[in-house]
């Protein structure tokens, strides 16, 4: 080889410079404002052990539950009737599963996460994916507030004790 090392380097720097000049900067991706509650590009992936046990949603750690509050139960019952009752009954399989003993099937945290964030659970949680296979229809997001969801949970904690 007649070319020495330093010439070699300069040569590649020259090519690199040409390549850079020729190339176009990657245009910044327009990031549409996060408008609405559609969850974009939820990365399918491994769920954490907590998520496996408690679902995916705003509740990210175990809660400490107080003794059942009858006022809250009443409130929860009313919300359940308006926003859930068209598809869920307590003792019969309807559009969705019977709910009287849901508290025995799922953790309280799971129940809250499912009510507050159904879309992500349908997409990523293996247990909920199975439900879709069985019930064919996906539970809609009823845009409950956290407090409303807590009231419905209180109602579930109560009705399981009233089993006929």
């Amino acid at each position: 080889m007649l070319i020495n090392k330093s010439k070699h380097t300069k040569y590649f720097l020259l090519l690199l410079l040409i390549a850079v000049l020729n190339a176009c900067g990657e245009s910044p991706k327009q990031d549409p404002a996060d408008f609405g509650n559609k969850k974009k590009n939820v990365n399918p992936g491994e769920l954490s052990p907590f998520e496996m046990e408690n679902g995916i949603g705003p509740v990210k750690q175990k809660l400490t539950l107080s003794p059942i509050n009858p006022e809250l139960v009443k409130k929860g019952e009313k919300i359940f009737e308006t926003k859930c009752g068209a598809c869920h009954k307590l003792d019969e399989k309807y559009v969705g599963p019977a709910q009287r003993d849901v508290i025995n099937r799922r953790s309280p945290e799971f129940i809250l996460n499912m009510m507050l964030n159904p879309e992500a659970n349908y997409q990523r949680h293996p247990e909920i994916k199975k439900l879709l296979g069985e019930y064919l229809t996906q539970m809609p997001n009823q845009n409950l507030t956290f407090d409303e969801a807590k009231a419905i949970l209180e109602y579930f904690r109560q009705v399981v004790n009233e089993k006929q």
Partner: protein
Amino acid sequence: MENLWFYKRFIIHLWIISIISISIGCEQQKSALSGNEAERVYVAPGTYDEFYLFTSGGFSGQMGVYGLPSGRHFKTISVFSQNPETGFGYSEETKGMLNTSYGFIPWDDAHHPQLSRTDGIPDGRFIFINGNNTPRVAKIDLKEFETTEIIEIPNSAGNHASPFVTENTEYIVASTRFSVPVPQNDVPISSYKENFKGTISFIKLDSKTEKMNLEFQIIVPGFHYDLAHAGKGASKDWAFFTSYNTEQANTLLEINASKNDKDFIAAINWKKAEQYLKEGKAKTLSSEYYHNYMDEKTHSAVSVKKTSVKVLDPKDCPDMIYYIPTPKSPHGVDVDPSGEYIVAGGKLASVIPVHSFSKLIKAIESKQFDGEVVGIPILKYDAVVAGEVQNPGLGPLHTEFDGNGYAYTSAFISSEIVKWKIGTWEVVDRTPAYYSIGHLCIPGGDSKKPFGKYVIALNKITKDRYLPTGPELTQSAQLIDISGEKMKLLLDFPTVGEPHYAQAIPASMIMDNSKKFYSIDENKHPHAVKSEKEARVERKGNIVRIYMTSGRSHFAPDNIEGIKVGDEVYFHITNLEQDWDVPHGFAIKGMNTAEILIMPGVTRTIKWEPKKVGIYPFYCSDFCSALHQEMQGYVRVSAANSSVELKYSLGN
């Protein structure tokens, strides 16, 4: 040797780099080099447009909503016309919106959208639009993109110079294009000059309730009041109205209303008018008109009949109204962002006259008058005019502003947009419009701070521009870039109905406020049912009320028996969904109305009078879920004298 080898290898590598670059392509460079129009209007899938464009629906009576720069159509807002797509004007809750003193009117001709303003700048709260045929003004709430209020304008006909707003939306204006007797009267048409009058109306928008009220009308000579704009900045207390037919012809206006060299712009000091109103100078004129609005809690129209209006007569109110002579049947009247210049579109004139507000005030102070018409002083043209734009194209109509010192005027006959400089009045650029441009629109282009960037040509004729669709062709809009010195056509797109005026506003000023659903807890509809448990059917005589709920993917109840021929059946359907973009539709076989679209959390009612015995399926007409096909039910209709019992059910 060594150099030659180096040179050869360098050339080969250069080729490789070039080929790779070309084959990969380089979009940014392309646009920088050639200004590729396609890229300028391309909004990638899943991304948003920069502006909302609201176009008048013309003789469809509705309003179109588009995105810019893409020209994508998002929605047609039901305004003055029944809309079978949504049930507007068919459902019991919305029928009242179309009540007038002439009864229920399911159509109008909508011309001029106008955004509400704060400090002279569009604020994204409301957009107003006029009904020309049976004079009305509608208010559309931009949280919902629904018509929430319509007020009828009495003592008027052809509500064309409307609904332009003052600097802080204190008032929305309306006026008479086709003068008529005021009050209406049975007189010979040939007694026009004696009996026909015009009115200029000021509708007040209550700053707290945000409701409209016809505050006062000014009675004016029976000319044809054509277009308007309120002042801004220095001229904010004023509003300007063009007029034609100052000849007061009542037949063959084509010839007879084009005789005078000059017609008038009426300059009205609305602050002064307000003061006269307070001082009790107004007379009360008995007049019948309707004020309709949607109640926020019941989602139902409230329709109120009004019986009188306050009228100011210029004879009793000096210094409130002046006439500015303006060449040849002026059409548009547009006020520049500073509020100083008032541009008239002299549609038959060979120049664009531009009046000066400061000269107007001086001319009033120094009484430079040239006669009067029934107590309204006529100012001297030369004392008010600031300049004339020469060679502005044939048939100049409307002018918008870019906020950088330039004005853009549409010329109908020569079918072009003419750009000219404010102050020097010289034409600096022109671009053809395809074809027969009427209005034009720059985002915020009639406000104190235009957002600029584009001008949209609103064209009446499209001839060879699109695939033919029989004798009637689409109307269109054209998007033209105005960011550089020269205007540059970027895009053609068809519009719903005839676009007269349009207004555009940055999307960011509206989109974050957009409503997603109505809270079911706040639904106070008298026939709402808040849970499936309450769903039921009740009969009182031959009136049957079906209290139904909807949710993905069933109605409750879905089997109903005991309905009889001759019954008046009301389906009161409450959509229990609380999620975005999940309306349900409802339709039943043989209904003589239209589908109703029920937004989440809302109750809507459709009346049905079954005429024949049989089984009638009903179903959800707006796709809602994977089991949408299953969202259906049956009503059994029996003979009038049948003894089939009323019953209803869901599931077994």
